[in-house]
């Protein structure tokens, strides 16, 4: 009886620990499946309402992303040229851009199924790579890999690579080009313009 109680207590404890600290693969799996489920069922989204997808991404996906780290990665050396205030603006604009891109991708590929590759990690690891694939007819499945980092608030995604192309570092040379030509403020301005044009084209649909 005493043993049984101990086992019960251990199980309970294990459950609590799990809820607090979701493993990287479980986190990605949970978020991706949740979001795809909603997208498939929601009529407005199916008919192309981008705004609704962006809202959905905001609630479900974004808490698990580290946008400051993403912006820093995309900026490379130029990150240090920016003042703390500029860094904040950059992060906000880049975040808006990535969210729209990611939402668009989810809608376009909603009918595909995601497969998760076996995940390996040591308990002490603070950096993890979750590999997934999306099937497509006639060619090799597209890989979508998530890089995660362990933070005080749990695991956070800091890079997504689609078919080997990082959505974050792919901006590096266009960002650097813009900073060289028009300075950090120039980059902020062109990100802002891009985001505005994206919003208005979304509203038209």
């Amino acid at each position, binding site marked *: 009886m005493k043993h049984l109680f101990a086992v019960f207590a251990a199980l309970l404890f294990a459950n609590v620990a799990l809820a607090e600290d979701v493993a990287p693969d479980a986190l990605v799996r949970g978020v991706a499946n949740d979001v795809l489920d909603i997208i498939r069922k929601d009529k407005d989204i199916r008919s192309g309402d981008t705004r609704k997808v962006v809202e959905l991404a905001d609630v479900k996906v974004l808490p698990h992303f580290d946008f400051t780290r993403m912006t*820093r*990665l995309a900026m*490379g*050396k130029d*990150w240090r040229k920016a003042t703390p205030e500029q860094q904040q603006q950059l992060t906000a604009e880049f975040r808006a*851009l990535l969210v*729209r*891109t990611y939402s*668009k*991708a989810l809608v*376009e*590929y909603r009918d595909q199924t995601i497969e998760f590759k076996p995940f390996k990690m040591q308990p002490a690891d603070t950096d993890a790579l979750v590999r997934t694939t999306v099937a*497509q*007819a*006639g*060619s*090799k*499945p597209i*890989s979508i890999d998530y890089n995660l980092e362990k933070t005080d608030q749990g695991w956070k995604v800091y890079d997504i*690579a689609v*078919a*080997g*192309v*990082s*959505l974050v*570092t*792919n*901006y*590096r*040379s*266009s*960002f*650097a*080009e*813009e900073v*060289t*030509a*028009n300075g950090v403020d120039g980059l902020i301005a*062109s*990100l802002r313009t*891009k985001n505005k044009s*994206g919003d208005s084209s979304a509203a038209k649909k």
Partner: protein
Amino acid sequence: MVVLAGLSGGCATTGVARQDDPRDPLEGFNRAMFSFNEGFDTVLLKPVAKGYDVVMPLPVKTGVANFFGNIADVFIGVNDLLQGKPGDAVGDAGRFIFNSTFGVLGLFDFASTIGLDKHDEDFGQTMGRWGMGPGPYLVVPVFGPRDMRDAAGLALDIEADPVGHLSDVPVRNSLTAVRFVSIRADLLPADKIIEEAALDKYSYIRDAYLQRRRSQVYDGHPPPEPDDE
């Protein structure tokens, strides 16, 4: 003298506000070719691909993609051999045999359901595997982004392609056209995403292409690049 003036004029326009990317020394030419390809795509290829995408039922599209995928498996196998991956090459041969027979001339990807996974190889990757660098980025007419190594690889791919060697010209041309349209239709979703994502479409596609090829050469596990974060 006129020539000289023209040359210096050309330098001045390409030199404005653009830092030289060492991976893309032909940027001026490439951008011109890029906009030519964009025009060609907008006027001809994309409308046809869209029509195909809307009109054809999904099983037909899948069948067409599988059919050409099956032909490609032969050369993927050859490239696996050239890259010293005999295990993968045997798998590719198995895929071709199973899909050509049980898969009804390749219309069904029967082999994937029994665990023979598709690989992704071409002559460009084979050269990369043996240590050849990508060389300068190059936008090829109609075919689009390449680098020098892959442009050479593309020439070999075309030379080795059985569809291109069919003696019946109408059949050969129809197959080539259908293949192009099928490949283009598969890329329609990616189009919209790139429009959404890119600040400068030219450099976004260039950088994505170079990253992707690097990843393919290392079969999805490229060594990390120097990170100046």
